[in-house]
């Protein structure tokens, strides 16, 4: 076996017996990825996916408007509806713990609306020249629908709910008006075929993304799987950094200096092994995103670009993480120093770089600060591999900062090894 191969085998054996190191490199990030995805997914759902709990209270003696209104609200798909009858003696609004929006249909609403529509129909027919006189009966005042909101609802969210409710009411009004006009002209109610012809079809909007071939912001899984993979990669600083310090202190580095091989071979072997570890970490974490998360009702991991760009990003991120650990190991005098500084720096850089909270959800100032963290560069590289079908030169541009940092870290480590008389 060549010295390099023997060094690689030795490193694998040493690593495979380091149970704490393996836990830190594989199980911890796996648990974090799972936990953070569950948490972020819940938060994400509240804003984007969950329906609003809305109660409709019918205080009207007629149920005609109430039925049309309820049907219209249901068709929007925005609400979890519940109904209550305010006339029942058991009813108490304050006891309702679920609903965050309550709509009260006031008494006499159906009648008043019906009168309003009849009047509008007559006026319209008169304007069209189809009716000479309009009824002079005194109009019944149409009361407002009463809307109550939970105070936790934000203004923009309230506005969106109000707009939806108003659009349902307007649709009911339009349908009633057209039916009334049909009746006034034909003296009969329109059948369903006629109704279908005179009612306008609901307008639909076509949605598309501004950036071609891009999948907008990542979902909780698409963020957390690469994020915690990166965290795991850089957290090898604990294992690799500590490993280098231990070798320096035990004298095995110095012994290797007296052997007919270069110590660089041993260091290269260490980096190769930990580089492979970073690829394995990616494999493990991305596998749980693919296979385990859907089983746990979490969003599945969808990789838009395919495996090759992902592998490309992984190799560069892994190399950068290993170089960082090498640097920490070379410059630390004790294992405690390497572990303390290594862990603290990785957590801080991860926080700045958008691992815990996605960059797109950060305030603008933090987005600017994030640019100093290699985690943010690495996340860009991963996003470009996961969310977009990027051409190769775009992928290369995304990993370029990592490649530059890797080169700088390797140079710094080389200088440190020279200064410490290890090379």
């Amino acid at each position: 076996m060549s010295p390099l191969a023997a060094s690689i085998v030795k490193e694998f054996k040493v690593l495979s017996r380091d149970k704490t190191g393996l836990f830190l490199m594989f199980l911890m990030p796996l648990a974090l990825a799972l936990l953070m995805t569950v948490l972020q997914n819940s938060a994400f759902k509240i804003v984007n996916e969950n329906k609003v709990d809305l109660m409709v209270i019918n205080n009207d003696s007629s149920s005609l408007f109430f039925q049309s209104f309820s049907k219209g609200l249901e068709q929007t798909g925005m609400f979890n509806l519940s109904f209550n009858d305010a006339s029942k003696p058991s009813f108490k609004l304050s006891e309702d713990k679920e609903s965050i929006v309550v709509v009260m249909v006031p008494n006499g609403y159906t009648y008043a609306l019906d009168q309003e529509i009849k009047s509008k129909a007559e006026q319209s027919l008169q304007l069209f020249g189809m009716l000479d006189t309009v009824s002079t009966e005194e109009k019944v005042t149409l009361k407002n629908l009463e809307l109550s909101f939970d105070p936790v609802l934000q203004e923009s969210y309230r506005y969106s709910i109000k707009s939806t409710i108003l659009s349902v009411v307007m649709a009911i009004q339009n349908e009633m008006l057209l039916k009334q006009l049909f009746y006034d002209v034909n003296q009969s109610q329109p059948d369903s075929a006629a109704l279908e012809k005179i009612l306008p079809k609901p307008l639909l909007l076509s949605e598309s993304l501004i950036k071609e071939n891009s999948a907008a912001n990542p979902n909780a899984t698409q963020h957390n799987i690469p994020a915690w993979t990166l965290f795991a990669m850089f957290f090898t600083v604990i294992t690799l950094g500590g490993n280098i310090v231990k070798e320096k202190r035990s004298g095995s580095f110095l012994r290797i200096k007296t052997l007919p091989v270069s110590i660089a071979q041993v260091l290269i072997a260490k980096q190769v092994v930990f580089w492979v570890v970073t690829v394995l970490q990616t494999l493990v974490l991305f596998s749980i995103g693919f296979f385990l998360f859907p089983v746990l009702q979490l969003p599945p991991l969808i990789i838009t670009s395919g495996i090759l760009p992902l592998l490309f990003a992984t190799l560069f991120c892994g190399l950068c993480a290993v170089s960082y650990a090498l640097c920490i190991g070379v410059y630390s005098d004790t294992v405690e120093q390497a572990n303390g500084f290594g862990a603290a720096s990785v957590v801080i850089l991860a926080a700045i770089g958008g691992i815990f909270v996605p960059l797109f959800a950060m305030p603008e100032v933090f987005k600017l600060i994030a640019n100093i963290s290699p985690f943010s560069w690495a996340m860009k590289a991963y996003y470009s591999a996961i969310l977009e079908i990027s051409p190769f030169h775009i992928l290369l541009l995304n990993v370029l900062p990592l490649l530059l940092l890797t080169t700088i870290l390797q140079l710094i480590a080389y200088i440190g090894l020279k200064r410490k008389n290890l090379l």
Partner: protein
Amino acid sequence: MDALTVSSLNYSYKNTENVVLSNLNLNVKKGEVFGVFGPNGAGKTTLLSLITGILKLQSGTISILGKDAFTQRKEINQLVGYVPQDFAFYEELSALENLSFFGAMYGLKGKSLDSRSNELLGVFGLMHVAERQVREFSGGMKRRLNIAIGLLHEPQLLILDEPTVGVDVQSRLAILSYLKKINSEGTTIIYTSHLLKEAEEFCNRIALIDMGQVVVVDTLANLLLQNQCKSLEEVFIKLTGKSYRD
């Protein structure tokens, strides 16, 4: 040809004005067991570090087995075995795995590596624990493994830095017995220790170093005669004094 020739060697560490070695000259003949002794801070470890290539030469020359230590380090490292005072191996690996790794570093392969590893495990009484992780070993077992690693490639020159420190009598006797055997077969040994009684029975020639310079080099018999002492310890105190040096 001498096994080792050191000429006009000077050395000082960076950021200190203290000269650790000053115009040091030494030669070790082939087949000798050569003892290097001196008080703490005398410069023994620095001298060994320069000979083994751990430290880089600043001035002076070192020739090992006819090769220049500055320009032919790789060839020298193939011929020299170094046993440091620290346990310089991997505690996570077994004794056999350590021997396999360091053997591969010396360029040993396949059956020759396996048979040499097994031979040394047998010689140093480690065969029954060959597959066990070294972290479970006693101090004596670790010390024996440390020496076995330095002997893997059957070096022509063996440099031992306090090889028997902290071991029991049985281990010490086994170690010295094997070292005497390989010396009788032609291996030159350079040895440092603070155990002067051990040195009396083990070394052919002795060098006393103090304050970075060679105080005296001679056989034990001549040293005792010239200094009218009964033991090496008396010679040591007489020539280097009783005051602390570190």
